[in-house]
């Protein structure tokens, strides 16, 4: 078990430089803005004193190295600064916005996995008909931009059939059923494309496992075909599927930025887009930071799960 423990520790340590790089990128956002970022933020009608005051509040008048360590210290203390427009605490803002993004991406991924994995297995082991049908679903699912799919779903389910609201949001704890009604279309929109990717990955991973020699030996042992597929092929395909799910969480977080804007969901993605359009750089920084941190965390968890699923990875042995 020591090699496993070493694997976990090594992977945890590897996260530190990644977090540092991420923090530098986020730190630089405001400082790389061409010209005077504060002037850009406040607009040309702002007075010189006003500009200087905000510059001082943001610490932009200090040496850059000091600025970075102040920034890092703030992050570690949980002090994320304040929103330039609303003067609200960004930490509070994030606490409001994050649950929306989590609900959206979490539900979408859940549905995508529940649909994509079983269909992928069927596509890998089934007859020609199911192969063709899933192939078509994959090509369309990958080719249709999610925001257009969302618009078309609104056209069908909200404008025409009037079954679901076209946009808006109610927190789950206020009205659970209404919350789900508002979430239905955005979640469905994100889930379709994801399901296509997961289906495709599952199919090719299971297909390739089914050609491996040990499947021949399982048949020679008289093991049933369904047990071979679900007990062995899917088990061996699991690391690749989990890896792709981990990567796709990043795609999903990107998709959430668009989908939250489209459906007027008050999540972190919409926060960032609005902030960019308002030149509200501190808020952009915090939003980017939050999404990137989730992404890095998910990558970490994915790698640990893959290591646990495939003992050869955590033992450091070559395949």
């Amino acid at each position, binding site marked *: 078990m020591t090699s496993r423990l070493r694997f976990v520790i090594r992977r945890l340590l590897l996260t530190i430089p990644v977090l540092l790089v991420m923090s530098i990128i986020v730190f630089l956002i405001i400082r790389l803005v061409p010209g005077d970022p504060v002037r850009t933020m406040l607009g040309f009608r702002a007075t010189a004193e006003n500009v200087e005051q905000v510059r001082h509040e943001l610490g932009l008048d200090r040496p850059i190295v000091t600025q970075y360590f102040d920034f890092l210290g703030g992050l570690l203390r949980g002090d994320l600064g304040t929103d330039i427009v609303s003067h609200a605490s960004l930490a509070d803002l994030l606490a409001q916005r994050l649950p929306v993004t989590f609900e959206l991406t979490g539900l979408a991924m859940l549905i995508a996995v529940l649909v994509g994995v079983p269909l992928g297995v069927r596509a890998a082991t089934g007859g020609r008909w199911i192969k063709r049908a899933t192939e078509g679903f994959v090509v369309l699912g990958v080719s249709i931009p999610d925001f257009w799919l969302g618009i078309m779903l609104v056209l069908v389910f909200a404008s025409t059939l009037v079954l679901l609201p076209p946009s808006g949001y109610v927190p789950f704890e206020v009205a659970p059923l209404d919350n789900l009604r508002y979430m239905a279309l955005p979640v469905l929109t994100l889930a379709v494309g994801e399901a296509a990717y997961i289906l495709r990955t599952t199919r090719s991973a299971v297909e390739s496992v089914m050609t*491996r*020699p*040990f499947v*021949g*030996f*399982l*048949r*020679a*042992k*008289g*093991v*049933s*075909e369904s*047990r071979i597929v679900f007990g*062995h092929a899917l*088990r*061996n395909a*699991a690391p690749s599927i989990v890896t792709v799910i981990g990567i796709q969480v990043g795609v999903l977080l990107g998709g959430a930025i668009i989908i939250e804007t489209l459906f007027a969901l008050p999540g972190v993605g919409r926060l960032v887009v609005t902030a960019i359009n308002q030149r509200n750089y501190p808020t952009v920084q915090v939003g980017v930071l939050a999404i990137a941190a989730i992404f890095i965390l998910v990558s970490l968890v994915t790698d640990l799960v893959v290591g646990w*699923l*495939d*003992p*050869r990875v955590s*033992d450091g*042995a070559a*395949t």
Partner: protein
Amino acid sequence: MTALLSLTDMEVRFGAAESMASAVDSVSLEVKSGEIFGIVGESGCGKSTLANAVMGLLPGAAHVDGSAKLQNREVLGLDEKSLRALRGDEMSMIFQDASASLDPTWPVGDQIAETIRAHRKVSRREAKQQAIDLMTEVGIPDAASRYGDAPHRLSGGMRQRIVIAAALANQPKLLIADEPTTALDVTIQAQVLQLIRRLRDDHGTTVVLITHDLGVVAEICDRVGVMYAGQLVEVADTADLFAAPRHPYTRALLAASPGVPTESRRLATIPGQVPAPSDQIPGCRFQERCPRRLETCMTTPHREPVFPNEVACWNPEPLPAGMASPTDLLGEK
């Protein structure tokens, strides 16, 4: 002794076209209960295809004709369900590369218990205990603690022992071993062969051992069949075959592997090339490379059914003085 496995006119073709020649061409043979029967030949001669056909493990594109009876029960043409009930229970097969035969993600012990539970209604715990006993029997030290190990933590020889234990878990009547030692070091090879022989002695399991290595044949086989280009060309007791090979191909094969029985060697020193299955050859398929070729060999294949100490050849090597064979009259014209 009675025949445990009898094959009659076994034929395996790939693809639909009638013109496609057979990968296995009218092979008939009987394997007696309790013996170790070797099938030897170069790679591509059809020996593995023959074994997989008996097991019902060929892909759907393969057409199998003829008859294969296990204890007088026809196994060709059985539906998948009945085949599955036979495989791992009445007959088992092990493959060349043990590392590739084990699921890398499953603990080795569970892969043995799986065979048991596929055929017997026993509890998990009982299956586990039986698997540990089997691991001990095939010579894995400290079996209980190795039960949960992933395959990559075991050496190649140990993995092959696990594979053998998994194949023999239900005490099948027949074990087909396809190049079971080819992927192993020479010293480990000998141990695994010893193990196969010991298991045969203890349980009376009939073994069909497929190999390209005459050294392996000499070491453990009771009788041996020689295959060339999809056909069975000679069947003999092992001692007789080495002492007096009858078919010119067998003779060439022996000549090409001088190091018997210590060293395995690829059989590359026979002049000419093995014909491809698609080549249409009237007459004997060995004619091009044969030093004893007659006119007849060019036109008529020797298709006499092959039984003990028989040889499918119009002009076989003469028997040395003192050895007599019932086929002498047939062979010498």
